[in-house]
């Protein structure tokens, strides 16, 4: 049975801003049916990085909802996002509140440009990224699959660029492998594909483009069985990575026998 114990020999760890991560998969913590299911899925995924959001406490029933009651910050890197922000200023404000929580100066920057598609506002994302980098943040920036924007994000000091595979929560998978491959080929900072991955083959196909990692949430939370899907995604992310490193066979529009053509009987 395949075990991953000697994985480090097969694939050096992903390193972002100097921190080596034990898995190339990052997962979100939203939309699970229960905290229990979320924790088990995160465990099964093998991830080290989980994203969280900053929201007002609900003064009437606050004890339940805080994520820190469910997740151990010693065990996971809690990566705050700025989801729900529609301007650079708003995103910067949320990032600073998140940092003040005292766990990390990393932030997953999101500046949304349209409520219906949740596609990023790349101009505002660039502006917020620059301001946060100047303020000492380690910024992982959610963006679309436009190479030019990705290059600009790298220019302003982004620690990792996070282009989408398809819209947040759509499950449409990697629609444009060419753009993702091109972005990876041109950037020096890690490229983490964020949003849109729906099932295991999407994750493997995405990693086969050569990118450094994947972040997903809905694919786990909305699966009928989030724990099985989390395990599937952990395995698929690693499978796609190893297949990329292994160098696949050529595609050919003809057949080649796998068995010897000599030594046949009369």
């Amino acid at each position, binding site marked *: 049975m395949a075990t991953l114990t000697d994985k480090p020999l097969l694939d050096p760890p992903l390193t972002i801003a100097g921190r080596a991560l034990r898995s190339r998969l990052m997962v979100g*913590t939203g939309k699970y049916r229960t905290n229990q299911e979320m924790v088990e899925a995160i465990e099964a995924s093998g991830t080290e990085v989980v994203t969280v959001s900053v*929201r007002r406490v609900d003064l009437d029933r*606050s004890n339940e909802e805080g994520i820190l009651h469910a997740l151990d910050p010693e065990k996971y890197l809690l990566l705050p*996002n700025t989801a729900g922000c529609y301007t650079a200023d708003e995103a910067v404000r949320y990032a600073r509140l998140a940092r003040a929580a005292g766990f990390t100066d990393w932030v997953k920057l999101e500046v949304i440009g349209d409520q219906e598609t949740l596609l990023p506002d790349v101009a505002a994302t660039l502006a917020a990224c620059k301001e946060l980098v100047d303020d000492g943040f380690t910024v992982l920036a959610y963006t679309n699959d436009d190479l030019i924007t990705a290059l600009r994000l790298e220019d302003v000091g982004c620690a990792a660029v996070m282009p989408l595979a398809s819209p947040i929560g759509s499950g449409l998978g990697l629609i444009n492998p060419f753009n993702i491959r091109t972005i990876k080929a041109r950037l020096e900072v890690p490229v983490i594909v964020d949003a849109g991955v729906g099932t295991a083959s999407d994750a493997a196909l995405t990693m086969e483009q050569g990118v450094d990692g994947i972040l997903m949430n809905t694919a786990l939370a909305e699966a009928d069985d989030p724990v099985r899907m989390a395990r599937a995604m952990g395995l698929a992310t690693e499978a796609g990575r190893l297949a990329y490193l292994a160098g696949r066979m050529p595609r050919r529009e003809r057949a080649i026998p796998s068995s010897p053509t000599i030594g046949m009987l009369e």
Partner: protein
Amino acid sequence: MLEDITIRVNGEPREVQGGLSVDELLRSFDLQPGMIVVERNGDILRRERYPEVRIAPGDSLELVHFVGGG
């Protein structure tokens, strides 16, 4: 025993006991200060100052924490 004052918490007007520190205020809401970030009148309040900073009438506070998100 000081009389109550009116402040804004997370967008809602609230009557709270006057002279409370931010730390006391959080506990009065049954919140663990270590898990809460406070923005007071637009400025983030460093956690170590929660015990010393006292709420004043008209203060506007945002009390935030981490929740599940993607």
